[in-house]
């Protein structure tokens, strides 16, 4: 696998690899997003307790899961960048950060919109809500830290270091609903147990989850390509590429 991965550390190869990947990712992301959301929001049966407002889970749950998934991906990229000193991995960290921040914000906002009719309050200081809010601040911290250095290289490295340090928060968010007995319900879908959700609602949810994941990959590819061009603009291959277009 390392033999296969190693050439991708070179910016030029990675640029073309992402370029080949992104149309496929775009098509599949948009298809699954439309399918999952139309199915989930329009055609699943109504919940006997929550009525129609439960449908927001088709956006809330995937974005919440992927807000953590994006952080994990960012932390892994950051670790790679720090340990093996790979520049492209640093750019990947900065490419993922805003996407993850937007997912976190979507998860928080949809959760608030659901919480108002269900819990009777827009915001509750519950363990999971609070830790998700911290996750948002961590994303902001990574982005702000990168912007605070006049030297780009140092900024990217330091932001990677912070991303690795902040990954300590991931298990806290994930297990918050089990460690503290709070208002937010426990996990509905687990790998090992039978899910506590009806299959007719589960399938569109899983499709939406896949869609959010593909969307993140696609956006990361696009942002990473831009970052590569920006950072390598003085290189001959970029000049040749830009001249050709």
């Amino acid at each position, binding site marked *: 696998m390392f033999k296969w991965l190693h050439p991708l550390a070179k910016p030029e190869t990675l640029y073309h690899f992402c370029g080949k990947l992104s149309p496929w990712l775009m098509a599949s992301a948009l298809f699954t997003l439309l399918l999952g959301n139309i199915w989930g929001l329009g055609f699943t049966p109504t919940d006997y307790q929550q009525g129609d407002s439960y449908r927001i889970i088709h956006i809330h749950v995937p974005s919440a899961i992927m807000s953590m998934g994006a952080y994990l991906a960012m932390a892994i990229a950051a670790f790679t960048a720090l340990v093996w000193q790979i520049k492209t991995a640093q750019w990947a960290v900065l490419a993922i950060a805003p996407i993850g921040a937007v997912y976190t914000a979507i998860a928080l906002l949809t959760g608030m919109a659901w919480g108002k009719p269900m819990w009777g309050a827009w915001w509750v200081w519950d363990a999971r809500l609070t830790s998700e809010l*911290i996750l948002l601040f961590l994303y902001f*911290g990574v982005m702000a830290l990168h912007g605070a*250095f006049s*030297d780009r290289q140092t900024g990217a490295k*330091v932001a990677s270091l912070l991303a690795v340090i902040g990954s300590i928060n991931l298990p806290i968010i994930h297990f918050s609903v089990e460690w503290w007995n709070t208002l937010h319900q426990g996990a509905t879908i687990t790998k090992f147990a039978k899910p506590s959700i009806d299959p007719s609602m589960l399938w569109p949810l899983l499709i939406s989850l896949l869609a959010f994941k593909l969307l993140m990959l696609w956006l990361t590819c696009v942002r990473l390509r831009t970052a590569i061009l920006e950072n390598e603009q003085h290189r001959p291959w970029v000049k040749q590429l830009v001249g050709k277009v």
Partner: protein
Amino acid sequence: MVSFVVFLQRELTLLARQKSDWLNPVLFFIIVLTLFPLGVGPEPNMLRIMAPGIVWIAALLSVLLAAERLFKDDYRNGVIEQLVASQQALMPFVLAKISGNWLSTGLPLVLLSPLVALLFNMESASLTAMALTLLLGTPVLSLLSVLGAAITVSADKGGILLALLILPLYIPLLIFASAAIEAASIGLGYQGQLAILLAIMLFALALVPMAVCSALKINVS
């Protein structure tokens, strides 16, 4: 070990000569505490309930205030660069920084806690719990603020950024510390929360110095 002692002596000498570095955060701690009764009203029962949270937030802010200047002078006059270049002395230097920071900002807060308990009419059980949580928690505050200072040492606009980076990491500490004091105030055992605080402290003590070293290396390279 010898170099650790040397660096610690240097830290303490510096602190003894620049008294404002450690006196100002302590004064800041007391001033923030006096603001709360003025802000939320002097009702004694409410203050007694809110006291643990108030004390902890004041402690977080005052430690943060002291953090900003931690590495600035050493960075400007080239000490850190020399230490990074020498390859050996960096870890003892970092450990001495952390110890010096705790002795100058963390320990005074622990010693002040009986006075605070008096001001906020806390019962003796809550006072013991508060002192214990501060004793276990302030080393973590010092560790994390040294980490934040190391990360932002060469940044152009360090101060606010430091707060933005480090405050989120303080939150688990705040949760368990206030849970311990709350349990103590209603007469329950709080050994569990103390054990978690101790675990957080040991965990941070094991990992943070390494992260500080690598942050300093990145900042001078």
